Every structure is written in structure tokens, then in C-alpha cells.
């Protein structure tokens, strides 16, 4: 069940140069949230920009009814979002899509996130911890300043390893380099979100070690509910059918996907 609602902004905080956390109250929606699902946010009451912006659930507090999103300013819509202020009313729709598969028993999970792709993994980590899973997060970014989710992960009680491309924090290099230090026999499942090149390496690790993993994909969207068929993608070039990222995903098994390197 998803809803169209008016959310009351609680905070809209700049965490780094171009990274913001938006928290708003939408109790009805919060009750139905599941990690990996996303929201469609209307950024303007005007007709331009017209379409809603899809953003993953970063964190949800069912008790207070608040939902957090972590967004990166990349264009007109996300720039407008930076002007949201506490007590503003925003037009939100969700939760949408199919989220991550939750384990039936406590297992060992590794979450690999790059850049703002870390967003859906936070709420996922919260659920996995509640399910008594062992959670390790491999978190990569360009610089130390962009590792905006680290403290929150630490508070959750997950094991955190970070990597930065400029070496300003943690391992100096791509986060996927951290994979080779993991013991595949100690892991049951992988969850990943970020640049497709990064997710491709996670998928390869999963395949080579006969593990299981899920990823979250992006595509430009109009409706967000499977009606317009706009967010189509062939998971593998030889597939006959197009999946709709909004409805069949955004979460897919990593082995079903051939990643696109430019993304």
C-alpha cells in the first residue's frame, strides 16, 4: 500500500558540499516502509520542473512517523529541494517499488555502498540488525567529507569499513578493493547500491563465491508505479522483456543484471 501525503519537514540539513538529509513527518507512509523502497517527491508546486523525483528511503522511524532521505544535488530538482525548511509542507508519494529481500533467519550480510548510493543501505542495515543479523558495511566515497553516513552506521552498531578515492579516510582506493579482504565463507548475502561499475564488481564477487546478492538500480521515471512504462531496462542485453525499474525493482538480484559501466 502506498499513499499520496503532505509531509511536514522536520529538517533539511546540509551534510557535505552537495549532500543533504531531508527528514519529514508522514506517519501513514512510514508504517508501510520497507528497505529498498523509494519515495516520489514533488519538488515544486509549479509546472516546472514537472515530474516527481525518485529518492530511496534512507531511514524511517515508525514510532515518530518520520522518514529521512539522503540526496545529492545534481540538477534543478534537487537544487530546489535544498530550499525546503522546517515546517514546510511537501507533497510526497510512496513507499514505492520492491525493496530488499529480508532473511528468514539471522545471517551474515555485507552491504556495499558508493557515494549517495549508501542511502537505501542505512535503512536496510537497521532492519538487518533488528533481525539479529551480523552486518558489515563497506562504504566508499571520493573524500572523507562525503562519508556523511558513517556516524549513523556506527550508532546502529554495524561493523564499518570505509574507503576514499583520495585517501583522506580509510582505505585509499575504490571500496570494492575491500572485498578481497573478506572471507567469503563468513558471508551469506550481499546488498549493494552505487555506481554500476562498483555494483558490477560486487556481482562478480558474489558469482565467483557462489553467494547471493541484491542491488538497487536507477532509471528516469515519470509515474513511479508501473503505469507509464518509461523506466524500462533490459537487465541483460539478451533478455526479451524490459523490466520496469519502479515496479519490478528498483531492487534486483545482482546475478540477473548486466551492469552498465558508464553509470
Amino acid at each position, binding site marked *: 500500500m502506498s499513499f499520496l501525503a503532505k509531509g511536514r519537514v522536520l529538517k533539511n540539513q546540509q551534510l557535505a558540499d552537495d549532500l543533504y538529509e531531508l527528514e519529514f513527518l508522514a506517519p501513514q507512509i512510514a508504517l508501510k516502509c520497507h528497505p529498498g523502497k523509494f519515495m516520489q517527491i514533488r519538488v515544486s508546486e509549479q509546472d516546472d520542473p*514537472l515530474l516527481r523525483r525518485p529518492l530511496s528511503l534512507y531511514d524511517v522511524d515508525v514510532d515518530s512517523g518520520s522518514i529521512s532521505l539522503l540526496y545529492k544535488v545534481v540538477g534543478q530538482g534537487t537544487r530546489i529541494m535544498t530550499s525546503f525548511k522546517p515546517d514546510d509542507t511537501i507533497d510526497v508519494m510512496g513507499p514505492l517499488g520492491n525493496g530488499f529481500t529480508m532473511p528468514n533467519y539471522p545471517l551474515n550480510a555485507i552491504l556495499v555502498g558508493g557515494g549517495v548510493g549508501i542511502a537505501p543501505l542505512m535503512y536496510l542495515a537497521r532492519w538487518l540488525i533488528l533481525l539479529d543479523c551480523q552486518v558489515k558495511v563497506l562504504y566508499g566515497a571520493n573524500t572523507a567529507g562525503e562519508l556523511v553516513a558513517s556516524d549513523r552506521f556506527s550508532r546502529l552498531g554495524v561493523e564499518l569499513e570505509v574507503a576514499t578515492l583520495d585517501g583522506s579516510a580509510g582505505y585509499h582506493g575504490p571500496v570494492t578493493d575491500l572485498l578481497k579482504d573478506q572471507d567469503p565463507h563468513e558471508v551469506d548475502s550481499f546488498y549493494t547500491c552505487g555506481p554500476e561499475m562498483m555494483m558490477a564488481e560486487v556481482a562478480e564477487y558474489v558469482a565467483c563465491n557462489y553467494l547471493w546478492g541484491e542491488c538497487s538500480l536507477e532509471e*528516469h521515471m515519470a509515474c513511479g*508505479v508501473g*503505469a507509464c512504462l518509461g523506466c524500462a531496462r533490459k537487465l541483460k542485453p539478451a533478455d526479451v522483456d524490459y523490466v520496469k525499474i519502479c515496479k519490478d525493482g528498483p531492487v534486483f538480484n545482482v546475478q540477473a543484471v548486466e551492469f552498465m559501466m558508464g553509470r
Partner: protein
Amino acid sequence: MKKEYGQGTGQPDISVNLGGLSMKNPVAVASGTFGYGFEYEDFIDISGIGGVIVKGTTLEPRPGNPPPRIAETPAGMLNAIGLENPGVDVFLNEYLPVLREKGVTVILNIAGNTVEEYARLAAKLKGHPGIAGVELNISCPNVKEGGLQFGTDPVMVKTVVEAIKAECSLPIIPKLSPNVTDIVAIAQAAQEGGADALAMINTLMGMAVDIRTKRPVLGNVFGGLSGPAIKPVALRMIYQVYREIDLPILGGGGIMNFTDALEFILVGASAVSIGTGNFVNPCLADEIVDGLIEYMQENQIAKLTDLVGAAAV
């Protein structure tokens, strides 16, 4: 012109007879923007919508165009979905029975690439109750005429409407393409072919370019422009056709709120359709109906028909 309220209920009469297709209210949702209706059930009671015009349906299943299929543009969007649909048999056997059960006013939108294809598709609808009317997408290339779009040539328009009328007794509503020089000539041809009403307008052909890749954005290069950006074009074309052609019009193109809808009615639309607006506000159809009722009550207008074409001078 001021009138008493209808039937003494205090509620103005907003039902519409669109060339034999009866709608409980004048607001339909446009083809390709509302799936089969199910997709939006969390947000709106689909049986309350004036008409649910389902995704463009073809004789055989179609996979659709390669992505990217959509691009946002100033106050609008481009789409090149490529008529992805499961084919008419799946629609008739799987989706239609459920929609009928729910009491949805179903308008089937059909598309084809030859006159025969349209006719065979129309013939298949016999014996399947629950279709209130058929919207005819004629913005498709006629493969037997060198790929020229049906909707751009009066002779082809008349031929295809006639062929469908011969196979199907449901109200037939050709949906006119705005990508023509003389919209009235096309409307005239549709009328001569036996059209019961007209839907207008379909999307305007456009494109978008990515300066980083130096390539067109859409996988299909060209796409159809929709949304508020096309509203003035839609109003103009409906106005022109309303004045010349005696057929009810289902008008749409960029409707985002009740005042937009009212503008369409004033230039001659008997009913309206909402497309891109559904993406922004999935409850828009209901909100527009509420807005129209309130407006009619405030202005003591008893019947919606009293407003149709009021701006045509």
C-alpha cells in the same frame, strides 16, 4: 447563461454522452499514462473516473522501444515508449474481466500499422462486454504507405475509421495527431469515416539532446511531447475543430488542474482527459471533478453542456 440546478438535488449534472459513450463525469485518464488502472488503485477509486483509457493495445504483443524512453523538458516531458503492450488477447481475457467486475468505465485505445490490423483488432472486441468505447490511435505509421502516419492524411484517416466502424458497433473515437498542418481537414475525414466523437490532442513530436554524450537523449531519437507545454496548442486545435465539425470532443493536452479543464470545455471539449498530470498528482481526476462541481454550483450552472464551447466566438 444562468440556470436552475438539475433534478432538484443541488448537484449539477456532470454526466456526459460522448457520441454514445456514457461517462459518469467528464474527466477521463489518457492512454499510456494510467496503465490499466490497477497501477493507481492505491491512490484513486478507478471506478469513479469518468473513463479509464487503457494503454495503447495492438493485435500482437509489442516489446516497446529501447531506453531511455522518457526525458523531462521545460513544463513537459518527451516519451517514446513504443507501444509496449501484451496484445489485445491478454487485455480481453485477463484485464478486461477484472475492470468490468470493478465497474470501471473502460475505453480501449487501439493502434496498428495497417488498415487490416486495425480492423482485425476491432473485430476481436465482439463478445467481450465491458468496453464503453474505442479510442483510435492514428499517430502510427502505415507500413503499407511508406510509413506515413495514418493521422496525417485525410484519406487514410477516413479509410481506417470506416474499416473499424464496419467491424465494431462500439462508439469509435479517433484520436487526432497535432503533427499536421490542417487539423480541421483530418477531423472532417474522421467524421466522414463515421467517427462518433474525436479525441484530441495526441503528443507533439519532439526531441532532446544530451550535450555530454552529443547524442539524442531518447533511445528512439524522437518522442512525443506532453504536459503543460502543449496546452496552448491543444486549446487552439480543439477550438478550430469545435467550430467546424459537429462531433463531441474529448479534449486534453497539459491539463494539470480544474481551471485547465474548464478552459478545454470552454473551447469546445465535451469531456477532458488527463495524461502527464496523473504522474504529478495521481488524484487529479477526482480533484478536477470536485472543482467543476464547485464551480458550477457557485455559478449556478445546471448542466456541463451549457459550458461546452462557450468561448467559441
